[in-house]
């Protein structure tokens, strides 16, 4: 069985082809929209997707020698994400499914990040920490769905790092040689600034106060590198702490780190140390699959399709705020 998956929720138009036998991943094409300046502009991104999307699909099929007729189902991210961006992927997927008379499988983007992580780690029942530009969540499977045990009360960790870097004049580019601009700067920090706020509320983190205070510290003349170091230390320690709370609360024995921010080596190291202390197994999704991609959509689509989850093309609406805990997960059982 072969499933083609399309991802277009934010900055990446991704197309993946996966099979239910080895080798599982047979195509992985990505077209990344890079904003001319500032953060992501949804309209601009969707324009980019409209021109690059069809090419990406063609590349994936031709590159792997699979004909559209051989594809058993088409899977697509219907949410959560940016409306204009999601719409491009959804339109193309609806068209393909209708034209080739194949089933269309709706995929939730957050679920896909988790499923690719479960597949790569081999974990059965992990506590999942999902950290990206738009999401900061601690989740675990409980009675048929992924439940949210902790999250950010305001901005996501990736957004925090990106915004801080941009406002401090350190980015774009945000990532240089696999390292975030804030981290490059933080590595040269020496002094921990006691006045920056560490905010953990129960199982939740909050980063907006830290963002404001960090920028204020820069304005006041604190060394940039010290601000970066302190901000990183606080932001990362706080998420590791709430993950540890999640482990204590749920009793899970596996810890899985997914999403774009999982690419940070410093952060992985912190998680690894915490997990080792608690006697919990740890796995971080490698950067290649931690960021948005089509493979994770195809892979999740395959799982869902095998459990009969399909949607008629004319009813495949995008859902910008489709919450993780609204999605039934019939393929997990224990």
């Amino acid at each position: 069985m072969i499933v083609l998956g399309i991802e277009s929720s934010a900055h990446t138009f991704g197309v993946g082809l996966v099979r239910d036998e080895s080798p599982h991943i047979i195509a992985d094409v990505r077209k990344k929209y890079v904003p001319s300046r500032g953060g992501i502009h949804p309209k601009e991104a969707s324009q980019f997707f409209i021109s690059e999307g069809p090419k990406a699909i063609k590349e994936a099929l031709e590159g792997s020698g699979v004909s559209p007729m051989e594809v058993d189902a088409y899977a697509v991210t219907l949410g959560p994400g940016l409306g204009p961006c999601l719409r491009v992927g959804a339109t193309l997927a609806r068209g393909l499914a209708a034209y080739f008379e194949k089933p269309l499988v709706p995929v939730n983007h957050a679920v896909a990040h988790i499923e690719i992580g479960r597949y790569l780690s081999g974990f059965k029942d992990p506590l999942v920490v999902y950290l990206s530009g738009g999401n900061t969540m601690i989740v675990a499977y409980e009675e048929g769905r992924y439940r949210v045990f902790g999250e950010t009360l305001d901005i996501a960790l990736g957004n925090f790092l990106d915004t801080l870097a941009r406002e401090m004049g350190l980015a774009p580019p945000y990532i240089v040689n696999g390292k975030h601009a804030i981290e490059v700067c933080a590595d040269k920090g020496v002094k921990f600034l006691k006045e920056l706020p560490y905010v953990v509320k129960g199982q939740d983190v909050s980063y907006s106060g830290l963002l404001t205070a960090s920028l204020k510290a820069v304005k006041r003349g604190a060394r940039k590198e010290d601000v970066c170091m302190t901000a990183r230390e606080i932001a990362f320690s706080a998420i590791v702490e709430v993950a540890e709370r999640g482990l204590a609360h749920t009793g899970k024995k596996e810890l899985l780190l997914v999403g774009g921010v999982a690419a940070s080596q410093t952060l992985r190291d912190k998680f690894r140390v915490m997990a080792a202390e608690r006697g919990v197994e740890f796995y971080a999704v490698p950067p290649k699959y931690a960021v948005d991609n089509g493979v994770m959509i195809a892979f999740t689509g395959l799982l869902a399709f095998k459990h009969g989850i399909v949607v008629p093309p004319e009813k495949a609406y995008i859902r910008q705020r489709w919450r993780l805990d609204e999605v039934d997960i019939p393929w997990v059982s224990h």
Partner: protein
Amino acid sequence: MGESLKNHSLIAVGAEAALYKGRFLNLDVVIKYRLRKPYRLNDLDLQLRIQRTILEAKVIRTLMRAGVKVPPLLYVHPEEGILVLKYIKGSLLRDVVHSGSIDVSCKGLNYVGKYAGRMHSIGVVHGDLTTSNVIITPDNMAYLIDFGLSKFSNRIEDMATDIHLFTRSLESAHYKWKDFLLKCFLRGYFNEKGDEAAKIVAVAKEIRMRGRYVEERRVKKA
């Protein structure tokens, strides 16, 4: 204190502390020891452990005076991150719910609501209100524990955060019973807190929406 503290054995490794049971001044006690976290920088680690130990001690004293059931505090050593509390015999509310004793759970939740209301009325927010931080005694009384993330505050926003966290903990850990259990909790809360309760609960609902994928925010900052 080493001399007077006898026969201690590890009973739990919580999220931030190791807890030992022992005898102290002829009482059954727990020693809550906030451990050093090797994943964080020394400066931050020390700052958090001392702050939270002091805070927990203050909050326990304040709540005891206000008639909220909490384990009495017998000794505190902030620099070492140590608190000695009276041992409370019983089970965690989380486990009571999981065991299926729904009537006992409801009664427990009613107490939690009442105590949360009382805390809020005297300007204390719990900061980590979950069913794991409530002990139900054999005579079905509820004790609140774990005040390391508490705060002295009269802000609606902070009180609402308590309600939000508690509601979500019911949703994630006790999905089957969440609606029923939430009613038990809110009944106690409304009874104690009166008119302001409705407003606080409304703000809690608003907080719930914030952290979830809010794409406008990402765009706005651009």
